[in-house]
């Protein structure tokens, strides 16, 4: 609420000035939505951003900088390293310093765009930052989330790929990063890239009209579609491949494009060499982008949740990436399932799946590393499902009819014509080819369809995916102190019961992370000048213990003033520690977890 009040008082002041002076367009732009906002349904947004377009890298970073300038108290936008081509990898930190330093709070890490062509995750990142800031102080849930958690947002972890995607013709793979690779083994790197011969921004197909002598024909229902002729028949067209030139004169066309590796196979869990996992590069973290992100995550052990946005297909993915890795321990799978299944409820047409069984096998993927190697609960959403083009049950039913204009194989022509007004499809046109002579060129799609939603549906995608990620952020572990009791046993020996609670879905340490020893154990410390711990035990249920006192777990550790809890505190559980303490005065019991924060309580022995 603080923010709102500040804004309103500022508005009153500036309103008076405005009546008398011409302070210019800047103030007007800032104030007028606020003035109307009081009556309109819209909240008085401080920063106007568009979510119906796609941002190139400078554009994207500029919007983040506008946010940072508008919300300097919470936001920091800084570089964590450079891409191969020298672009900054920018991270936005959202932290309320008044509720504690970053490291004392669980953090949610959000990234996007590791594949250069999978762009819309960056817009989700931008939307998330914008939404959290604009609604801080307005919506209680958002305010609480921002106060309790830290967010690290890297809108593009492959800025080279993103910029390449934005700048180059449609039809060129921009998935890879840009470290040069010799794809064809001729000792030259990236020497034969695609060529847009007619300069229209699309790498199109080339066909030649050869009436009655070809092996392709036009689809009767959809004249834009070319299809191979059935056996025994002839068609009117032959296909001559795609636009392109043999730039290096080796007899092959476009055989050595940029990069051609996969930035999402260069991570250190189940990394496999290139011949097992295509695109893996020579060793983990060889890519400067992967190394910078890993260094960042290593330096921020408070990160408890990861979301890596990809496209497309409508999936909420979790690891493992390969069957041989074995499924997650049951207790880990349990909270993943709960989060993922709720995700399906806020993301219609998205399915919660395991990567290897639901998508395909991935070795050395990012979220396998963050789960197995860094102990972070990690999801990867595949943004946008083609099913969202025709969402009503009635239209779904129509699609079952193969002669319907929205049957699956032709539906996107229909959609492009009637909803996007022909923005994305490039029809065939006559063209004089330098090598093939008179041909037709076309039959290709522009890049902002298929894997990305149409622009008018983009904001919904942003909001729903953000909602799932904020839900994940909210369910990260959080250690809280429960009730305490002190009982005198005899002499100066006391029995002290302390309850610790983790009310969230996620544990402070995942079972897999505990097995791999990749997260520092939780530390249960007891401080007290005049106190000696004789014994300590865990009790699962205090009520049960009162009736059956034998149900304890004696903590078999040498130093009972500093107890290691290696597998942490499970989600939505309360655990009681029972100390037998000899001494007097005040003792302080502290539960310190890396990913779930800290809690402490001071108790008097009496």
């Amino acid at each position: 609420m603080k923010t709102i009040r500040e804004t309103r008082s500022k508005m009153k002041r500036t309103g008076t000035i405005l009546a008398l002076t011409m302070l210019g367009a800047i103030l007007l732009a800032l104030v007028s939505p606020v003035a109307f906002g009081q009556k309109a349904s819209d909240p008085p947004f401080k920063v106007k951003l568009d979510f119906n377009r796609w941002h190139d890298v400078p554009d994207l970073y500029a919007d983040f900088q506008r946010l940072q300038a508008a919300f300097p108290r919470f936001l920091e936008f800084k570089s964590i390293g450079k891409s191969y081509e020298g672009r900054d990898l920018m991270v936005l930190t959202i932290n309320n310093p008044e509720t504690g330093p970053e490291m004392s709070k669980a953090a949610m890490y959000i990234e996007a765009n590791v594949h250069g062509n999978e762009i819309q995750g960056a817009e989700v990142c931008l939307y998330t930052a914008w939404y959290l800031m604009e609604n801080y102080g307005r919506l209680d849930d958002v305010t609480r989330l921002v106060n309790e958690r830290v967010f690290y947002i890297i809108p593009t972890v492959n800025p080279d790929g993103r910029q390449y995607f934005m700048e180059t013709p449609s039809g060129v793979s921009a998935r890879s990063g840009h470290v040069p690779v010799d794809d064809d083994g001729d000792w030259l790197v990236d020497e034969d890239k695609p060529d847009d011969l007619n300069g229209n921004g699309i790498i199109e197909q080339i066909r030649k009209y050869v009436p009655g002598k070809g092996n392709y024909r036009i689809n009767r229902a959809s004249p834009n579609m070319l299809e191979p002729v059935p056996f025994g028949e002839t068609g009117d067209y032959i296909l001559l491949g795609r636009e392109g030139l043999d730039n290096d004169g080796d007899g092959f066309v476009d055989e050595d494009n940029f990069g051609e590796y996969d930035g999402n196979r260069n991570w250190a869990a189940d990394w496999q060499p290139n011949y097992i996992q295509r695109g893996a590069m020579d060793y983990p973290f060889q890519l400067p982008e992967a190394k910078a992100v890993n260094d960042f995550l290593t330096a921020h052990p408070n990160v408890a949740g990861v979301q890596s946005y990809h496209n497309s297909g409508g999936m909420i993915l979790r690891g493992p990436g390969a069957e041989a890795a074995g499924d997650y321990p049951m207790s880990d799978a349990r909270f993943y399932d709960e989060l993922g299944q709720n995700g399906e409820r806020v993301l219609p047409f998205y399915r919660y799946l395991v990567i290897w069984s639901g998508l395909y096998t991935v070795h050395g993927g990012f979220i396998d590393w963050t789960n197995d190697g860094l102990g972070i609960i990690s999801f990867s959403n595949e943004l946008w499902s083609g099913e969202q083009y025709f969402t009503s049950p009635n239209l779904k039913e129509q699609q079952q009819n193969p002669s319907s204009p929205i049957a699956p194989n032709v539906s996107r022509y229909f959609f492009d014509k009637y909803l996007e007004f022909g923005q994305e499809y490039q029809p065939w046109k006559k063209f004089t080819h330098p090598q093939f002579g008179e041909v037709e060129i076309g039959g290709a799609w522009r890049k902002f369809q298929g894997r990305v939603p149409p622009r008018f549906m983009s904001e919904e995608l942003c909001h729903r995916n953000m909602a799932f990620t904020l839900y994940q952020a909210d369910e990260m572990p959080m250690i809280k102190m429960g009730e305490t009791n002190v009982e005198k046993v005899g002499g100066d020996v006391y029995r002290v019961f302390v309850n610790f609670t983790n009310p969230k879905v996620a544990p402070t340490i995942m079972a897999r992370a505990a097995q791999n020893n990749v997260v520092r154990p939780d530390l249960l410390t007891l401080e007290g000048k005049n106190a000696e711990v004789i014994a300590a035990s865990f009790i699962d249920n205090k009520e049960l213990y009162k009736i059956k006192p034998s149900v304890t777990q004696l903590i078999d550790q040498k130093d009972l003033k500093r107890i290691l809890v290696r597998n942490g505190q499970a989600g939505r559980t309360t655990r009681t520690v029972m100390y037998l303490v000899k001494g007097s005065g005040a003792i302080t019991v502290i539960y310190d977890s890396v990913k779930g924060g800290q809690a402490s309580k001071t108790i008097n022995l009496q």
Partner: protein
Amino acid sequence: MRRFLARFPRPAATLPVLLVLGLALTAGPAAGQETPRYHAEMTSVLQTLAGAHKTIARLESIGKTRGGRDIWALEIANPAGVPPAKRPALLVAANFEGDHLVGSEIALSVAGFLLENYPGDPDVKQRLDNSTIYIIPRVNPDGAEGYFAPIKTGRRTNATPRDDDNDGRVDEDGPEDLNGDGFITVMRVKAAGGEYMIDPDEPRLMKKADPKKGETGAYKIFWEGIDRDKDGFIGEDPIGGTDLNRNFMHDYPYYKPDAGRYMVSEKESQALMAWIIAHRNVAAILTFGESDNLIAPPAGGRMGSSRELDLVRFADAGNALAQTVGMIQAGDGVGPGFGRFTGGEFSFEMTGDFPRQTRQQQAQPAAQEGGRFRMPDRKAPTTVNTADIEYFRTVSEKYVELTGIRQPLYVREPQGAFFQYGYFQFGVPSFSTPGFGLATAESTGQRRMGMTPPGAGAGGEPGPQAQAGQAGRQEPRTGGTTATVVVSGGGQEIIQIMQGGRGGEMARAFQGQAGAAAESGLVTAPGVDRQILRWMDAEKVDGFIKWAKFNHPDLGEVEIGGFKPYAVTNPSAAKIAELGASHTKFVLYLASLFPKVKIAKLEVLNHGGGIFRIKAEVENIGFLPTALAHAVSARAVRPTMVQLQVKPEAILSGNAKTNYIQTLSGSGSGRGKFEWLIRAGAGDVVALKVVSEKGGTDTAKVTLK
């Protein structure tokens, strides 16, 4: 330094002697030399050596360690002609393990001999004129420093701080030289319930008591030291670090303390990887390290068995559970006594609470029904390709012949070792040898680990691991046998019941302990302690410190003794010259094996009308194939490119302008044949170019007439 060089006679003065290289090299150190020793000052030694041979030696730092030390690479080649970076090359790298100094000394000797004997020795001249030899003598300079420290710990790792027991405190509990003799050895403590006993056949040694033979243990074994962090373990978190020969990608031991946080996590390994992928001309690799595939070649594709010290394994075993302290039961209450020491998974299994289908298990068949094509999950092989084994065997035979070494003293399993990367991922013949050993192969019977593999049942039947051939590893989910693993936990006795048949989770949860138990000797055969002691006695090596009483502040009366650090992994410095000489011969042999592509035939036939037929044959006249069989399947080596230097549209028929040969076998036995019909003008000159990653380049021209 000057004295170091004095070991090598000046070439001008000694040319006649050196003409027969073998004679000169086996002659050993001449009178008047410095006392042989291990070199702390590697940088100045190398700089002086390179400085004295500027024309053929180039010294380059490929990276700096955490301790600020340079990792040096010495390039040795006569730079005239084809640039050294484009010639087939041999990489010699050593001292990955901080306690394996002898490797760096042999590598240094090899460098010295090569530089001193060029161009006088014809073999040396032939190799340095036509190929390149890279020598990286000390990959782990921070680790090697331990050898020169006042207290010798035998540290193998580099200097990266590491919380080995993951207790939130880094490097807080290393061993300590309690008796002040300058060596970290082990302590044996009389204790009821101890697992170890004095070996009745060799009272200097300890063995694990075998209850099946009615033996009762009476001792516990610890590293020399005190429990500095009062956690119940002694010396469980020493200074450092990462074992660099466990830090590479092939068969990487994930999440093991010495293996580093992840593959290639270290500055040293990163520097070496960056270097080698920029040097694809490296056609063979020789490493000196604590694993071996030269003295004993891979049999049936598998590495030889490891031979490690029991005393060390026993001392380590006591600390294995330090990594699991605080693994407590989570979740709902279960019956008393159940799951006290287990992870949360076990309790679910036990209570039957969760025979529950997870969502992804439901989704999986649906995904398959949906007809989504799924590539079969490929796995990288872990054994040498059968088609390549003969090359390893041939080289091994030559190695044994030239060095006379028939049995390594001490070898370790090569998980994550660099030389394994060299073959399995870089795709070249790649070797490792400790560089010294026994001149006679002594049968150790069941002492050799591979013969009684881990996982073997009580009857000694080889378990699944025997097939895997990787002794000392315990794979999860290996059948339903029940093993009881008893491990001492620093004054605490903890009994783990492992039920391997329960599916992977339990097994995985206790993989650490199981591995540790394997090291403790319970499920593995005894080590090589007795053989090493015999060798030390025979060679008069002062390598074993006799047990002596000591009053320990916490444990009371103990005895301290055992193998001296470095004494098992390094021979006496007096042996270096001889080892350097024999390994130089081996290096020259290795550098003679490289593939060499050659255009064997290039013919033209004029068909008239401006049409010419060109026929070409390409062969490999070297010994090795242009790519090993595994390199072909792993696509690790670029195929040999054969390219006709004409415009693509000039080719009417026949082969493409650019062609690739996956591999050409050596000794001229394999030929690539090509044929083109081209349109050209009479009198035109057409060139054919052949480029091989490991076998050089050849070009031929023909005039069309």
